């Protein structure tokens, strides 16, 4: 334990939730005085009855213990409200714990939010000085690193412009640049990488690895599982204020976290016709799912390089050459991305349908869609005559999610913008 730079023992943080004043962030003196005056009266009237509780204790962190060794990059993951931010706030001494103890064997600098203390009226130059001081740099240190910071942020030309006239990209670059040049033994990073363009993100990542390679310790909180998998040597998974998992198997922890995450939100990747619906004289669909290569409907977000199949089962009642099946694919914003039908190829390649139970399947190409959540709706038609299962009308929908596995390239770590994220091959032609 002696080489641990951070030791956290049984850490707990309790917040008291006020039920009466939920909408008010601060109390008015009037209410305090009123309740103080009223309470002896109330006690007198009620006798020994306890007053109805208007407050409730909420443990944002409970019995959290872990330790971090020097030079480790620890990814802290968990859903919103899992206690990540509270943990960081305690480690960076913004708020005090209610229980437990933390031992820090190094100075801590936190980037809980880049640009903290930036003042819109001040110029870039002035903000570098101010922000440096806020983050705990000495003036001599800021002056020494000033040029480096400016160069990193790529804002040379705008140094004497008030930052309120900066583009949001410039603003973030400058803010991160100041913070990135801190030299603490422990750096706490929270979600800063969510902003900035791809090139700048790469720069930030490089800077973070540099910091880690310099023997410094980084605590990294992010919802970006790709970044966590690629950057961190260790992961800490939090759920409801408690440590779920903690260890060096980053990929495993991330996968289990994502898996567990999905159980609570019912976005099933399978539909089964349980109530005899969509009963049509030509065909009745019975089963519609996105399955993995083992033939099981997805229960967790799939990695983008996984082989997935869309599977449709139905009871064919009449042989009709015009009968086809397929799906329509929608993204998170309900934009229709594509259709795929059994009759898309040349006629000789169509699956032969026979009377009785039929199953058709279609492989989804790996590394084609981007990270995200998708909705798939079944469609069945007797071509040009009867569209009896019609997307956005009467068709059952299933959901699936793609997370991670975007590429094996070291330069493609984050989800890119765009609907699709195909990995296409480049070759030299000359």
């Amino acid at each position, binding site marked *: 334990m002696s080489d641990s*730079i951070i030791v956290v023992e049984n850490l707990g943080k309790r*917040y008291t939730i006020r039920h009466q004043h939920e909408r008010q962030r*601060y*109390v*008015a*003196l*009037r209410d*305090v005085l009123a309740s103080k005056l009223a309470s002896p009266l109330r006690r007198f009237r009620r006798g020994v009855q306890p007053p109805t509780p208007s407050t409730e204790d909420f443990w944002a962190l409970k019995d959290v213990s872990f330790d971090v060794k*020097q030079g480790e990059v620890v990814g802290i993951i968990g859903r919103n409200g899992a206690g990540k931010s509270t943990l960081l*706030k*305690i*480690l*960076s*001494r*913004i*708020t*005090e*714990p*209610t*229980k*437990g*103890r*933390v*031992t*820090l*064997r*190094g*100075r*801590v600098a*936190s980037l*809980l*939010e880049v640009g*903290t*203390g930036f*003042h819109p*009226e*001040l110029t870039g130059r*002035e903000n570098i*000085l*101010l922000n440096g*001081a*806020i*983050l*705990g*740099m*000495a*003036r001599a*240190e800021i002056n020494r690193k000033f040029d480096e910071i400016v160069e990193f942020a790529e804002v040379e030309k705008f140094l004497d412009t*008030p930052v309120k006239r900066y583009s949001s990209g410039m603003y973030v670059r400058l803010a991160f640049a100041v913070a990135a040049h801190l030299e603490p*033994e422990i750096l706490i990073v929270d979600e800063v990488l969510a902003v900035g363009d791809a090139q700048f993100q790469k720069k930030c990542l490089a800077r973070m690895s540099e910091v880690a390679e310099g023997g410094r310790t980084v605590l990294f909180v992010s919802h970006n599982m790709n970044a966590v998998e690629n950057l961190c040597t260790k992961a800490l998974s939090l759920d409801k204020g408690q440590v779920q998992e903690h260890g060096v198997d980053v990929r495993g922890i991330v996968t289990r976290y994502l898996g567990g995450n999905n159980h609570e939100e019912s976005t099933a990747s399978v539909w089964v016709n349980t109530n005899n619906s969509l009963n049509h004289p030509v065909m009745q669909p019975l089963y519609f799912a996105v399955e993995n290569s083992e033939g099981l409907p997805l229960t967790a977000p799939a990695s983008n390089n996984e082989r997935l199949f869309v599977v449709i089962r139905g009871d064919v009642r009449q042989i009709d050459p015009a009968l086809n099946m397929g799906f329509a694919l929608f993204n998170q914003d309900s934009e229709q991305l594509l259709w795929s039908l059994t009759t898309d190829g040349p006629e000789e390649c169509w699956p032969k349908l026979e009377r009785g139970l039929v199953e058709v399947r279609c492989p989804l190409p790996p590394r084609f869609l981007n990270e995200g959540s998708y909705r798939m709706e079944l469609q069945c038609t007797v071509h040009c005559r009867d569209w009896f299962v019609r997307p956005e009308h009467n068709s059952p929908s299933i959901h699936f999610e793609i997370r991670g596995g975007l590429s094996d390239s070291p330069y493609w770590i984050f989800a890119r913008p765009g609907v699709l994220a195909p990995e296409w091959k480049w070759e030299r032609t000359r």
Partner: protein
Amino acid sequence: MTAMSPAGYELIIEPGRGESNYWRDLWRYRELMYFLAWRDIVVRYKQTAIGVAWALIRPALTMLVFVAFRRLAGIEPSQVPEPILVFAAVIPWQFFSSALTESSGSLVGNANLISKVYFPRLIIPSAAVATAFVDFLITLGFLAALMLGYGVAPGWQILILPLFVLLAFGLSLGLGLFLAALNVEYRDFRYIVPFIVQFGLFVSPIAFTTANIPERWRTLYALNPMVGIIDGFRWSILGGYPPLEPQALGLSVAVTVSLLLLGVRYFRRMERSFADVI
């Protein structure tokens, strides 16, 4: 932060443990106080046409109004030029009132810093008082010019002025800390502070001197700690006129010192929950 070997550095965070590192941290973050004060000064006069002149216009106009008031009310002119008599009192009052206004709102105004970064919170209201102090120095310069214009020379008493300045500083800080901490939890103080400032302007010896107050009300009147401070300012600037009243001065010192101690203590006690409440 100074370079420190990580081997020798150990910090333990436990409930209620902030105390032991506090004063050391306050010293280590002293530059932050300088930067915050500097920020407030720079920002205040950005995009203003006449800039720092605003620091002079308000006290100068206050002085003119009170000089006119003294004439209209038929208060007997003193032995020193009226503008100087009044301005010597306006200066500490202006410092006190703007320091109090700014420090009491400073924590809430810097909520984003408090909920994001650690540093001893005492720095924020202190920086606000320091900002007001810069304006104070400017008005002091204006007073010197005014005295030069009227040909009024201070006596040896001017050497004692720094002590009264210190007293004014302590009073502003003490009360400012109290109100700043209270304001975090009870925003009512947003409305109370302007009232204190407005009311104080009339019960402090600015338009009048302590000599205008009937003898039997003097003790009650001197409970206002600004009485001793303003009298002290006049006494040291105007060469011992009007003479100092030891009782008022003593009360002033006592109230200031106890407010400062209580203010720091209350602030320290409330400080640990600022980030959760603000």
